[in-house]
């Protein structure tokens, strides 16, 4: 029983981080029908920002969360205005390619600025607590709490009737939305920069529990996509539920099988799920 | 043998019976008008005949063959062509390529598809736009284009969903002449809300309401049918 609980908690921690990655992806897809391949690089951005903050000023890595969010929002806004805004109404492939190119540029810039070195620090909450035989580290708790707060804040933003409604209208038909008085440009800017801020927050948390390299974000991206697909493209609540489900699945499967079989299983399940329910496990409901 | 025989077809969407047990036959060379209020199930019936949906019940026979479970493209190849109420051109292709993409119905293969296409385009007054991308045409033009594309199939049955929508009276007259000329080769079913212009042309009119056929007969019978006047026409000059 303790083991089950322990695995469940572990799964939740991993799943919550995954959920945050997916949340940003789903947000941008939901508003702009844009698959953002550069999302991983924005994660990396947050990780390096936090690393630099902690190692140069010596403050707690928790400060990295708001700082990374701010930096992400700003850079996200700039990227939206310079690049993403030009992709509106373009075929999916072109948008895909443009964000992929952005990702290559980002990868190159990080490599140039930091080399391939691992960057890491040891500051931050340490130790653990034991509850009913289940051991949870303070770092994990921090990640979990941060994810829940940030996730809830984002959900509150998009489920606020007007913002969310405007987002969805823009996603469906930009022109008609504009003709209905929705400020299309502002909606898209808001969505993109919030999404990048989310990615940067993820990065801050990842730097805190792992190490930072130029492609740390890249490695989370594919898992993020898995979650977004299972949750139903663009469905935010779907992504969150899927993230937790996959986190738990992964935790249990890699305990009872092994790590790589757990991964194979996740992908096979995903492939089958995609074929059976192309709109995602929960997405079908939101489509009608 | 009838050209088309739909017997007892039904289609539900959730709790809604969009088509609720319709019997519908079309004889070769006949022009049938299909009328009815908005949401009566006319387009849905077209979708069932053309194969975009499969019916929940009932059978559809075309030229004597049971095509109820045939996918849309096979029905097209057998000779059922259609236009869409909301136009659906291949926007990136030129008008000519749009027509060349068509797979003509079996046994109607032409050796000179380009010439056939040009002829059809001339028929709907679009010959001069043959090389423009479909996306640059106005909605009205696209309505006409869709008729040409459907004819390119060399159909034996053609389903026209609101062919006159968006046309001026002059343009409508031209379109109706074209439809009359098609009758020689294929049976025509036409959904139209412009009763004033469309009804006089029909050999027979069928009126649907809430998924059912409520009246059918000659144009004159329909025009004076009280149920039709009540449900559909009203006493407007438009209807009269």
């Amino acid at each position, binding site marked *: 029983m303790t083991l089950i609980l322990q695995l469940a908690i572990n799964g939740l921690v991993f799943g919550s981080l995954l959920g945050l990655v997916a949340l940003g992806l789903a947000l941008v897809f939901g508003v702009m029908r844009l698959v953002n391949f550069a999302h991983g690089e924005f994660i990396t951005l947050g990780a390096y920002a936090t690393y630099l903050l902690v190692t140069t000023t010596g403050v707690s890595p928790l400060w990295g969360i708001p700082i990374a969010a701010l930096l992400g929002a700003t850079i996200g806004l700039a990227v939206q205005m310079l690049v993403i805004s030009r992709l509106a109404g373009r075929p999916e492939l072109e948008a895909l390619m443009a964000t992929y190119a952005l990702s290559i540029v980002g990868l190159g810039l990080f490599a140039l600025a930091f080399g391939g070195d691992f960057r890491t620090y040891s500051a931050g909450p340490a130790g653990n607590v034991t509850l009913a035989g289940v051991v949870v580290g303070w770092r994990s708790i921090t990640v979990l709490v941060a994810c829940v707060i940030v996730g809830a804040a984002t959900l509150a933003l998009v489920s606020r009737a007007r913002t969310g409604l405007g987002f969805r209208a823009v996603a469906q038909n930009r022109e008609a939305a504009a003709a209905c008085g929705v400020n299309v440009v502002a909606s898209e800017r808001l969505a993109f920069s919030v999404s990048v801020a989310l990615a940067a927050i993820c990065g801050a948390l990842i730097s805190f529990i792992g190490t930072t390299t130029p492609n740390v974000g890249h490695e989370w991206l594919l898992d993020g996509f898995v979650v977004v697909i299972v949750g139903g493209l663009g469905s935010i609540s779907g992504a969150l539920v899927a993230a937790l489900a996959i986190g738990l699945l992964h935790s249990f499967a890699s305990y009872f099988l092994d790590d790589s079989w757990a991964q194979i299983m996740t992908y096979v399940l995903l492939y089958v799920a995609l074929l059976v329910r192309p709109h995602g496990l929960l997405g079908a409901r939101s489509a009608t | 043998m009838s050209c088309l025989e739909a017997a007892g077809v039904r289609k539900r969407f959730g709790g809604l019976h969009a088509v609720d047990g319709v019997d519908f036959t079309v004889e070769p060379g006949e022009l049938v008008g299909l009328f009815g209020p908005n949401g009566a199930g006319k387009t849905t019936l077209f979708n069932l005949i053309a194969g975009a949906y499969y019916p929940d019940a009932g059978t559809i026979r075309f030229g004597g063959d049971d095509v109820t479970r045939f996918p849309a493209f096979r029905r097209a190849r057998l000779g059922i062509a259609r236009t869409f109420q909301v136009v659906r051109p291949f926007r990136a292709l030129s008008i000519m390529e749009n027509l060349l993409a068509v797979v003509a119905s079996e046994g109607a293969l032409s050796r000179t598809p380009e010439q056939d296409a040009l002829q059809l385009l001339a028929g709907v007054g679009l010959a001069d736009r043959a090389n423009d991308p479909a996306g640059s045409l106005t909605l009205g033009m696209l309505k006409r284009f869709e008729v040409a594309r459907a004819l390119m199939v060399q159909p034996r049955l053609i389903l026209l969903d609101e062919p006159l929508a968006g046309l*001026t009276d002059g343009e409508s007259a031209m379109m109706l002449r074209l439809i009359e000329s098609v009758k020689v080769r294929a049976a025509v079913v036409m959904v139209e809300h412009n009763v004033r212009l469309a009804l006089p042309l029909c050999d027979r009119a069928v009126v649907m309401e809430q998924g059912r056929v409520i009246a059918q007969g000659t144009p004159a019978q329909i025009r004076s049918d009280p149920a039709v006047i009540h449900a559909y026409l009203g006493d407007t000059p438009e209807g009269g």
Partner: protein
Amino acid sequence: MLDVRNVAVRYGQALAVRGVSLRAETGSWIAIVGPNGAGKTSLARAICGLVPHQGTIAIAGEDISKLPAWERQRRGIGYVPEGRQLFGAMSVEENLRVGAFSRAGAEVRRGLDEAFALFPRLAERRMQAAATLSGGEQQMLALARALMDRPNLLLVDEISWGLMPLLVAQVFERLAALNADGLTIVQIEQNAHEVLRRATHAYVMAAGVCVFDGPAKSVARDPRVLESYIG
């Protein structure tokens, strides 16, 4: 109310509208008629700011030609676009709510009630995705959505398209009632007879220019115009 001066629209090389001027006094009902490809829709889109254009457009004396589409909408323009342009995956009700995007809660509710009163059919289909509505139902929704924001100026592009005769009559009645309440209407319509009977003033467009304008009654009676542009 609306003052359009010398508006031109081009798509790539092609000029779709070549300098059209048009005036609509408050409370008037303007008809724009003309054959396919005349540039009517392009003109309407230019007025709404949905397509880049030259020339000036003023609403209630204010020049709005540099404003983006949503700002123009907030100056009181309601638009029923050609081809409906609904939010396909959203429900009927959500479509209406977007129509009242800049309105507060109570007003939205009142708007919904009015929309459903005008088109009871939509009330029955309240939760259905707009893309799956029948053609006529979509047209109703497009009109209802444009009215949600209580515009001062209503631009309608081919409203009778797809509506059954009974409803066309109803819609014209409704427009007439709104017009009587002071709503300015600019209506593009191929189906010229009804609109020319109702409108105060008519413009006839062909090949991107305005070839004729005058009181609607006189257009309706001018055999030359009818013959060459309307048929």
